[in-house]
Every structure is written in structure tokens, then in C-alpha cells.
């Protein structure tokens, strides 16, 4: 059984990861690259350089920073801009796709019902709410250079919001017993009552217009990703798990 489940996971995860890379290339990535022109903000540690550009109307100062430099002077490896960077982004998107596909197919199997392309798509929308919309309400998608609180606390809250929303939606929508529904509602709301860690001060170097555009582009691309993943995972599950397990 695990082999059939993994077939559905790999097929849907890799496909969704590749397809969303194309979507990102035209939606979020250009905004990331634009925001990186402002990133760094003139801090001493990041070797900010002041350059003049006439490309933007009126001319503006942009702050750019060179390669990240460690305290010990060694540069951390990073992909070269251009093809190499796109290749690693594709690779990381495929891994993200497979990771989410594994969680989604685990949910299909735990539920124990038939899934096809249509119901898979609905599961996918639920995945979007769990892993993008709910965490994003407290921690909006960030452009590089955005002000934010310490990373560990944000990651913990992100996981808390995703887990609470997943368990909450399950108990609210898939269990037909009132006490469980009430518990589901509480789990759904709890992360937002607790609240995500917010930065102590606001006012990062990236213009708010760019940040706002990125947040909506990221959420929109997230919905596309989850709809694709849910649809393909539903079809794969029907083909490789439901039918195969009965043959």
C-alpha cells in the first residue's frame, strides 16, 4: 500500500512543483528580485553599496548588498543569479510539492473515502487555507528585506497556525458530532487569538506598495499551487490507490 501511496505523492508533488515554478517565474519572483534592490537598508554588516540609477523616473538611490559575508569572512554558498538560481528554485519547489503532496495524500488515506480530481481539488483548497491563508493572516508573505521578529518564534507560530487550522477544519467539517465541531472551531481560531509574533519596529527599506503586491501575488500563486496539487493528487490517488488496491 505504501508504494502506491508514494506513487501518487511523487507524481502529484513533482508535477505541481514544476508547474508552480512557471507561475512563480511570472508572479512572485520578479517582485523578489525588485525588492532585493532595496534590501540591506544600509546596515553596516551587509556591505551596503549606494548606487545611482536613472532607470526609475526621477532617479532614486537604491541600496544593494553584495554577497552575504560571515563574521569569519567566509562567504556562504548560494546559487549564482540567473539559470543556476532558477534551477535551485525549481528544485526547492519540487521538494515543497512532494512534501505537501505527502501530507495531502496522508489526509486522503486517513479519511478513507474515494478521491477523484474534483474532490481532490476541494481538498487542495483546504490545504491552501491550512498552509497559506491561515499562517498568512498572522505572518503575511514577506519580501526580502521586510522587517520581522526573530525567526524561531515566527516558524513556531506558523506551524501552530497550520496544525490548528488542519485539525480545526477536520473536526469542523468531517466529524458529525457537535462537541467535536465546537473543538474544531476553537482550534481554528486559537492561533489568531494567541497572535503571531510581530516585529518590534516597522519601516523596512522595501516600499509598502511592493510588499503588498508580493503578499497578494504569493497568496494567489499559493491557491493555484494547491488547486493544481489537489486536482493532480486526486486523479493519481484514484488511479494508483483506489483502483489498484481493488485490482
Amino acid at each position: 500500500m505504501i508504494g502506491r501511496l508514494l506513487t501518487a505523492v511523487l507524481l502529484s508533488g513533482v508535477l505541481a512543483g514544476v508547474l508552480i515554478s512557471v507561475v512563480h517565474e511570472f508572479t512572485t519572483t520578479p517582485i523578489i528580485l525588485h525588492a532585493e534592490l532595496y534590501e540591506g537598508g544600509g546596515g553596516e554588516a551587509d556591505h551596503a553599496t549606494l548606487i545611482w540609477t536613472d532607470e526609475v523616473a526621477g532617479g532614486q538611490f537604491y541600496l544593494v548588498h553584495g554577497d552575504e559575508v560571515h563574521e569569519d569572512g567566509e562567504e556562504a554558498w548560494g546559487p549564482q543569479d540567473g539559470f543556476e538560481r532558477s534551477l535551485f528554485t525549481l528544485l526547492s519547489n519540487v521538494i515543497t510539492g512532494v512534501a505537501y503532496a505527502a501530507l495531502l495524500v496522508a489526509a486522503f488515506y486517513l479519511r478513507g473515502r474515494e478521491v477523484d480530481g474534483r474532490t481532490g481539488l476541494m481538498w487542495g483548497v483546504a490545504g491552501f487555507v491550512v498552509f497559506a491563508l491561515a499562517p498568512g493572516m498572522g505572518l503575511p508573505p514577506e519580501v526580502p528585506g521586510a522587517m520581522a521578529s526573530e525567526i524561531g518564534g515566527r516558524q513556531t507560530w506558523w506551524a501552530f497556525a497550520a496544525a490548528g487550522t488542519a485539525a480545526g477544519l477536520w473536526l469542523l467539517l468531517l466529524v458529525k458530532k457537535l462537541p467535536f465541531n465546537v473543538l474544531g472551531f476553537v482550534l481554528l481560531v486559537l492561533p489568531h487569538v494567541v497572535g503571531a509574533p510581530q516585529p518590534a519596529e516597522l519601516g523596512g527599506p522595501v516600499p509598502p506598495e511592493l510588499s503588498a503586491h508580493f503578499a497578494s501575488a504569493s497568496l494567489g500563486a499559493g491557491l493555484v499551487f494547491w488547486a493544481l496539487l489537489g486536482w493532480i493528487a486526486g486523479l493519481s490517488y484514484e488511479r494508483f490507490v483506489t483502483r489498484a488496491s481493488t485490482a
Partner: protein
Amino acid sequence: MSDNVLKASIAAQSVAERAIPVMILAMLGVFLLYGVGFAQPDVLHNAAHDGRHSFAFPCH
């Protein structure tokens, strides 16, 4: 056997029988998600940088 009888075989399994594959998949998903979206070593961060931002993982 009819399709319905065949398809009932998954539903007929108890939750306990389904638990092991579910746990294996869940652990695989969490492990990969941690590596691609959460792990802090610079090399992993730099390689997955644009993907992390686009998927709105907490970054930096």
C-alpha cells in the same frame, strides 16, 4: 467483483490499519517541509531562498 465492493475495501480498513501508512507519509512530509522551508543553515537557505519567499515560509 463490482466497483463498489472493490472500492469498499479501503473504507473497510480500520483507522488502526491505516495509521502506519498515514504516519509514514506525514513524517516524510514534515521532514521534507522542514528541510525546504524551515532549516536555517545558510546553504539550505540560499538554495531554497526564492521558493521560501514565494511559498511564504517565515524567512530571514
